[in-house]
């Protein structure tokens, strides 16, 4: 991370701390969702044989990451249309610094929401079942997902440019990607014709890996390998789009 | 027939302890542009708000196009057009849709409102922009559309509250031309401004208001006359030296300290000669550090009138730069 990116990340974090909606999206809204999903579906899940708070935490972390990523897409679009990007281009800083600055700030925000969500879930009954190393892996994997998802969304923001279009696209990605996954409900609950999609799509694969890291006595290699492959692939796509968009914004 | 389109008598309006209007009276003839000139906080916007039925006066009467603004507010609203300081448009609608909306609210038929909107877009050079949302408009385009919006049904009296604040010089001159054209079509225009140049250039008659009352009224020429004859003007770029120069010249006449120098009433060329002699001596001794840029005889400007009447050190043209 270059010095320029760090300075620009500071700018974004300062801007975020002044927007009440950004704290809402990163901390309060995910906490609210965790509480509401646990309250509403705790009993029916229990009946289905699922310890729901254990099942739910990865889902809520993934959801919070989506909120963060969606706002990063919007900030990226605002930077392009508002001309901040162009202004930074004429200054002696690296071309990629603005994008890395935003990414760095968004991952910091994601870390903040994970830092709020894990203790809250523990209060509701969540326990890390694996060892210390696996638990550290849980946090690390969540942050890796945040970095990749934000890269993709920033690339989308830079490419689409128009704030309204970015908002629309964000919602159209977010709802199916999250709700047609095994994040909130297990794949077997879905209609049989949907199940293959639900099982194999990247959000489910990442949720599998994060869940395995919190659990004990489960195979780690397979889920981690699949999730890593997905994340690497998405990262390449996101970086590709971002690079193209930055070139165009010149 | 020469008719009075706006007549205000002894208007009073107090907000808490602030007296916004303190006995304001004025008469505006049909088909003229009337400039209401005053510093910030003089009561210009309150006056407009009372004339346009937004605010009720505590005391006094106003008749607009023959209707009393408090008793016949509904009729007044039917014959006036208002353009405020900040263009109040619907940003999610296009320019054309905004004009049609305001036309429909002015009770034009659907087709009539559309035809009128197209006509106004053409007249205000907004035909191409008419299909775009006003969100995307520049400041000058917004003002033009805002003005057009107050003309969807040709008003009898048009109120313009600081119509050119924040506009670039080119857009300002374009807007002035449009306002003149409206006047030439028989519309009575009341505009407020804090720009002396705007009042001088545009208004047929000017009222200078300060602390909620009219302190002087007349044509620009009459007001300049009232400020007295010629003045001897000394331009001093360094403002720190102005007071000292003023003291040095105090016995030659009543010296006024201006934003760009000092001035004093001149009886004729002999005053100029006396001033030059005095300064010639002084710069050799006590005023040796003073940099004099120019000395000359000048007809008074509206600025001299304004400063004299409002007793303000505030420089209206400086305010312009700041906005």
């Amino acid at each position, binding site marked *: 991370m270059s010095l320029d990116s760090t300075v620009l990340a500071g700018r974004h974090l300062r801007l975020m701390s002044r927007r009440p909606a950004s704290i809402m999206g990163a901390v309060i809204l995910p906490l609210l969702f965790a509480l509401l999903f646990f*309250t509403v579906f705790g009993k029916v899940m229990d009946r289905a044989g699922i310890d729901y708070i254990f099942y739910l935490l990865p889902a809520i972390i993934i959801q919070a990451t989506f909120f963060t990523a969606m706002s990063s897409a919007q900030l990226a679009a605002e930077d392009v249309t508002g001309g901040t990007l162009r202004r930074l281009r004429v200054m002696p800083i690296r071309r990629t610094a603005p994008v890395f600055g935003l990414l760095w700030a968004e991952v910091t925000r994601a870390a903040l929401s994970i830092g709020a969500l894990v203790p809250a879930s523990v209060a509701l009954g969540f326990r890390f079942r694996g060892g210390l190393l696996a638990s550290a892996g849980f946090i690390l994997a969540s942050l890796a997902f945040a970095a990749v998802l934000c890269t993709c969304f920033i690339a989308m923001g830079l490419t689409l440019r128009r704030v309204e279009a970015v908002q629309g696209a964000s919602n159209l990605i977010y709802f199916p990607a999250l709700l047609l996954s095994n994040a909130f409900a297990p794949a077997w609950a879905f209609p049989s014709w949907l199940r293959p999609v639900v099982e194999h799509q990247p959000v489910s694969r990442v949720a599998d890996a994060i869940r395995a890291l919190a659990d004990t006595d489960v195979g780690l290699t397979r889920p981690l390998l699949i999730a890593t492959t997905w994340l690497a692939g998405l990262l390449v796509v996101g970086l590709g789009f971002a690079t193209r968009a930055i070139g165009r914004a010149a | 027939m020469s008719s009075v389109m706006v007549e205000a008598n002894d208007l009073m309006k107090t907000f808490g302890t602030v007296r916004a209007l303190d006995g304001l009276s004025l008469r505006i003839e049909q088909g003229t542009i009337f400039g209401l000139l005053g510093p910030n906080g003089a009561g210009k916007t309150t006056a407009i708000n009372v004339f346009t039925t937004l605010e009720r006066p505590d005391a006094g009467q106003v008749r607009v196009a023959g209707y009393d603004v408090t008793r016949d507010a509904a009729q007044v609203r039917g014959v006036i057009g208002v353009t405020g300081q900040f263009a109040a448009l619907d940003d999610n609608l296009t320019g054309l849709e905004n004009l049609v909306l305001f036309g429909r609210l002015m009770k034009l038929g659907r087709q009539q409102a559309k035809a009128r909107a197209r006509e106004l877009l053409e007249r205000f050079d907004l035909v191409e922009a008419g299909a775009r949302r006003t969100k995307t408009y520049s400041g000058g385009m917004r003002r033009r559309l805002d003005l057009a919006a107050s003309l969807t049904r040709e008003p009898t009296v048009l109120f313009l509250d600081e119509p050119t604040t924040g506009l670039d010089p080119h857009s300002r001159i374009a807007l002035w031309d449009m306002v003149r054209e409206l006047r030439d079509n028989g519309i009575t225009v009341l505009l407020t401004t804090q720009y002396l140049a705007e009042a001088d250039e545009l208004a047929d008659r000017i009222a200078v208001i300060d602390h909620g009352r009219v302190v002087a009224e007349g044509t620009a020429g009459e007001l300049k006359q009232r400020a007295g004859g010629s003045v001897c003007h000394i331009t001093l770029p360094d403002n720190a030296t102005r007071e000292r120069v003023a003291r040095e010249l105090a016995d030659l006449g009543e010296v006024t300290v201006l934003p760009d120098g000092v001035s004093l009433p001149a009886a004729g060329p002999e005053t100029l000669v006396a001033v030059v002699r005095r300064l010639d001596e002084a710069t050799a001794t006590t005023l040796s550090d003073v940099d004099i840029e120019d000395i000359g005889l000048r007809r008074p400007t509206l600025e001299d009138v304004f400063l004299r009447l409002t007793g303000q050190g505030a420089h209206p043209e400086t305010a312009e730069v700041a906005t």
Partner: protein
Amino acid sequence: MTIAVPPPARASLLHDTMVMTGRTLLVTLRYPTALFIAVVFPVLLLLLMTASFGTIVLPGQGYRAFVNFGLPLFAVMGVLFSTLGTGATTTIDLQAGFDTRLRTMPVSAAAPLLGRIAADSLRNLMTLVLVVAVGIVMGFRFNTGPASIIGFFVLPLVFALGVVSLVLAAAVRATSAESLTSGLNAGFLLISFLSTGMVSLADLPGWAQPIARGNPVSLLAEAMRVLAHGGPLTRPLLGTLAWAVGLIAVFGPLAVAGYRKRRAARQ
């Protein structure tokens, strides 16, 4: 140039309200976020919640059963969250001085607010019809008579009048559209979830049951289920109407008073 003074245009409550309604609808349909919340959001909820939670909430009963059970809530959520857009545009208009300008025109004083409320109702009706149409494809059925079916559509519109009163009362006092929506958003989420809209009362934890029982969203969802499928109507119907009347009685006057004050002079 003639000096002929044209007869002054006059305010007309009906005409002005219709023009303002048309304007608000036009803006809603053009604003992607508003359209998303009114149209896509409730349909997505219906599709996705049915697919993921349907057989868990109602084990052994199939997805169809959950569509019939959950559809009222998802339609109501579309209505609730759409109201936020009405509030946000009201705040933005007031800040821009749009309503102040209308006051200098021959426009009925009540028309701008009434127009927003009427447009809100029309958009809500659109949401309800759309959700039901998608629901019917998924297996939603009415087993009652025409009067009940009409009631199924009208009751949420009546309740929405209470909600829009609350939202407008907040909107005319809000300093920014963003703070208005983020505050109300959380409240609407709470009452949507802590209700019997998605699970039955017995499936909620003990502490949440009293909240869900009196929650207007529960009452409305239950009343709509009864209006679609039959059952005892009195309690949920009267409960919903009581909430609607109460909200209108409390927040209606607050909205009107705040609106008068706010548009009297800018800022």
